């Protein structure tokens, strides 16, 4: 015991890989929860294969995910894993080359049969042929040890093997210095109704923990101090779940039921699936016949005086374009959540990208402005959705919220807000039957038009997709009226009050790096890193893309250079260049994968001329 050293680290990155039956997701989730409980900051990144059921034991069938644990605030799931937990040869083959040099690879030595090696595509045993040279390989007979630990448990041998993941979790719990009682509590709560399973998992977990403690397999264990995290109630949440909850919260705080029309599309579908559970929160879901009908049903909901919401991804946004233009024309509240994926066309459905920005901005006929905001982390999808609903109702406008596959399907700890902490969303209907109602009479400040809905006594009126008179809403082909209406639609969106952007670092210097949406984490992490090295670099995360924050132009002007990393070929850069007439360096990546911090660090140094 005494010879075990404790390695003090700021951050450790762990990647789990295995077949779906290996239960690695549970291990990862538990380790994440344990680490969060011990005060670490945590971040995770799932990595699913695009085929639903690829054969077990093959590299194509491996799924995995990566977590980062930090003793300070961390913003991504990390660059290179320090520890890879790979449950069979295929799982090793899938990911060993990502592991940091000198990093640890924990693998199940019981799985290294000739057949398994062959299925994984190895011609010889990677543990012996030099493939894994330079890594600290811990080949542990997890299967044998689990069976041994469970020899007194009365269950069939193959069922005992299912407790293997708890043995692994026991080892990791020891290795990362976490409180085993928390896992034991979890096992007793989760499997309370299945006493034999509970007994098996409990025995496997304790055996794993003791294995770490009593064998000389590990010379050191990790020690991460608590990060300074705001006290409060936390849960892990994916971006798509958070968006669905944001919709329910907006319904509650506005008092308006939601009409949520949708058509399933990866990687956005979970928002609708989660939403369909929320009927008791007045989220009325309608699975429609196509993407167009999805947005049209939502628009119908808004026309009835509810809040219409729809969700989609790239190709679906293209299909919704015409209806979205009508919502601009009719000036009705509507929220479109676009979880971006690789394009063009069907593209890379399961892989992340940020290439719908210009489609959201300009992908409609005519001058058709609408507000666009982007969520930056999984938990931020809640706030961003709530904010999108709020703006839609305040300004009587469709709003596009951009998230992406990475934050939509990735998860992170979320500090659960209280309903009482969320702002009310005021909604004003005209309902005085004697009021001289004019559909396009506007609030002088927000330019939002007055809203009377079917059923309101004596206020019946007609609106449509044809250009309308600037006051009465009657069809108008008068040239000057179209000029006025076009200008007004532009002005309404341009004048939306959005918060100023905050500068991370000094407010002037050599380089400003601008992130948007899912690039926030990698950019923040990278900029913090180079700032710590004394470089004159700051960053801004752009939440509002249309309109842009009022202080952005001035902020940009105080830096010698501007860099925008994007998961596209430079779409925000195009907007910033045209808006502020500044030169912008871009860092483009379209590999279906989010930025790693080092990629941004390397680019920053290149731009700085180092």
């Amino acid at each position, binding site marked *: 015991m005494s010879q075990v050293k404790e390695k003090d680290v700021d951050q450790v990155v762990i990647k789990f890989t295995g077949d779906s039956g290996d239960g690695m997701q549970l291990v990862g989730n538990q380790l994440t929860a344990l680490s969060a409980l011990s005060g670490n900051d945590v971040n995770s990144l799932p990595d699913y294969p695009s085929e639903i059921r690829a054969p077990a034991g093959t590299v194509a069938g491996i799924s995995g995910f990566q977590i980062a644990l930090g003793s300070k605030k961390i913003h991504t799931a990390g660059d290179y894993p320090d520890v890879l937990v790979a449950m069979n040869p295929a799982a090793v083959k899938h990911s060993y080359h990502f592991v940091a040099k000198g990093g640890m690879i924990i693998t199940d030595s019981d799985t290294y049969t000739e057949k398994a090696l062959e299925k994984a595509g190895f011609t010889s045993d990677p543990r012996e042929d030099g493939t894994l040279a330079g890594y600290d390989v811990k080949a542990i007979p997890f299967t044998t040890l689990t069976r041994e630990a469970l020899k007194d448990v009365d269950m069939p041998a193959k069922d005992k093997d299912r407790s293997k993941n708890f043995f692994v979790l026991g080892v990791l719990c020891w290795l990362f210095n976490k409180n085993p009682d928390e896992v034991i509590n979890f096992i007793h709560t989760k499997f309370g109704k299945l006493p034999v399973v509970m007994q098996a998992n409990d025995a496997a977990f304790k055996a794993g923990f003791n294995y770490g403690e009593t064998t000389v397999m590990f010379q050191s264990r990790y020690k991460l101090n608590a990060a300074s995290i705001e006290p409060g109630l936390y849960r892990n*949440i994916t971006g798509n779940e958070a968006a669905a909850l944001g919709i*329910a919260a907006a319904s509650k705080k506005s008092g308006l039921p939601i009409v949520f029309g949708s058509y399933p599309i990866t990687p956005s579908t979970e928002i609708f699936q989660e939403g369909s559970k929320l009927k008791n929160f007045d989220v009325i879901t309608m699975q429609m*016949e196509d993407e167009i009908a999805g947005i049209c*049903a939502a628009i*119908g909901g808004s026309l*009835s005086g509810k809040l219409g919401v729809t969700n989609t991804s790239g190709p679906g946004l293209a299909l919704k374009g015409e209806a979205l233009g009508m919502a601009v024309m009719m000036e009705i509240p509507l929220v479109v959540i676009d979880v971006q994926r690789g394009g063009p066309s069907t593209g890379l459905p399961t892989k992340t990208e940020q290439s719908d920005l210009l489609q959201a901005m300009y992908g409609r006929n005519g001058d058709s402005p609408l507000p666009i905001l982007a969520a930056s982390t999984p938990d931020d999808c809640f706030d961003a959705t709530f904010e999108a609903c709020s703006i839609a109702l305040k300004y009587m406008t469709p709003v596009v919220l951009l998230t992406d596959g990475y934050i939509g399907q990735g998860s992170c700890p979320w500090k659960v807000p209280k309903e009482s902490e969320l702002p009310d969303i005021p909604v004003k209907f005209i309902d005085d039957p004697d009021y001289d109602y004019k559909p396009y009479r506007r609030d002088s400040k927000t330019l939002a038009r007055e809203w009377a809905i*079917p059923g309101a006594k004596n206020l019946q009126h007609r609106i449509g*997709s044809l250009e309308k008179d600037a006051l009465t809403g009657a069809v108008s082909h008068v040239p000057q009226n179209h000029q006025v209406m076009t200008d007004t639609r532009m002005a309404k969106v341009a004048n939306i009050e959005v918060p100023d952007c905050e500068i991370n670092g000094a407010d002037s210097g050599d380089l400003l790096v601008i992130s948007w949406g899912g690039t926030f984490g990698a950019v923040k992490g990278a900029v913090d890193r180079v700032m710590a090295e004394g470089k004159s670099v700051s960053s801004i995360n752009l939440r509002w893309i249309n309109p842009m924050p009022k202080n952005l132009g001035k902020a940009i002007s105080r830096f010698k250079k501007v860099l925008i990393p994007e998961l596209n070929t430079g779409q925000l850069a195009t907007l910033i260049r045209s808006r502020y007439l500044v030169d912008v360096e871009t860092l483009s990546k379209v590999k279906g994968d989010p930025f790693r911090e080092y990629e941004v660090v390397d680019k920053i140094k290149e731009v700085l001329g180092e």
Partner: protein
Amino acid sequence: MTTNNNTPMDKNAFASPAEVKWCPGCGDYAVMASTRAAMANRGVPRDEVAIVSGIGCSSRFPYYMETYGFHTIHGRAAAIASGLKVGNPALDVWVISGDGDSTAIGGNHFIHAVRRNINLNYVLINNKIYGLTKGQYSPTSELGQLTKTTPYGVVDYPMQPLKVAMGLGGTFIARSADKDIKLSEEILTRGANHNGFSLCEIYSNCVIFNEGATDHLSGKDKAEYSVVCRHGEKLIFGKDKQLCIVQDGIRLKAAKVSDVSESDIVVHDERNAELAYLLSAMNNADGQPVAFGVLYCDPDKKSYDDMVYEQVNDVKAKKSGESLDDLLSSGNTWTVSSTICTSTGCKTM
């Protein structure tokens, strides 16, 4: 649920001040008169009526009606009206659409609205031509028809919207023609009173681009070419009631009354879906008449909007105790405090 026990109103109360801009002689004027009359019969207050249309000549309809009106985009009226109805099921929601809007660009939404049996009053004004774009053929134009885009004749087969709707399990299927104002008023009134999707196809004459295309069904000879279906009555037609419909195996055929025994004449049963399907398929081939009136009515099938709210109310009753705070804090949660737990136990920092 729509109500049908209001006091009848004056049909002129449904006319908006907007100037009607259809061509003089257009059949849509008559359809609008029938629709206003149907609305007046029902007596649903004007401010509880919403009319949704797509794009096309007929889709200008809402502007001319003193109700709530939404003139939307091409083909999408059914989907928009579906969201509107679900958003506020107390409204009386009408869709006014044309043959292009419903059977071409909006075919998918039309199909699924019928299939869902959502409580919309759907008026399909069929002039068998694209009028607003000035004379191209539509999916209901006849084979061989000469139009702007078929100078040598149409080579695709026409769609029969009512037959399609019967195939989809539609619950109210009816037909009339523009000039038959009373019959139109009657089917529109019954359709609107029907709790479910009601489809009224009304032939309309396009005086500019398809003049006379349905004259045989609406003019002086209409009795020779059409049969008005009335529940419980024999299917007899012809100027002198000399023709009838009889069964021929599992098909229907036209016959002379004098050639058949009275008991062989088919009696219309609007609850009989198989009969309604056969009636909806009749298209003037082999001396068959086109069926008018209410071909089919099934008042028992639940509407989509009713089922949506039954489910919502059911879930609300079961989860009445769940607050937003409960929802937000569901799942595995943990509390971050100043107390930190490691493998050696917990301590307060």
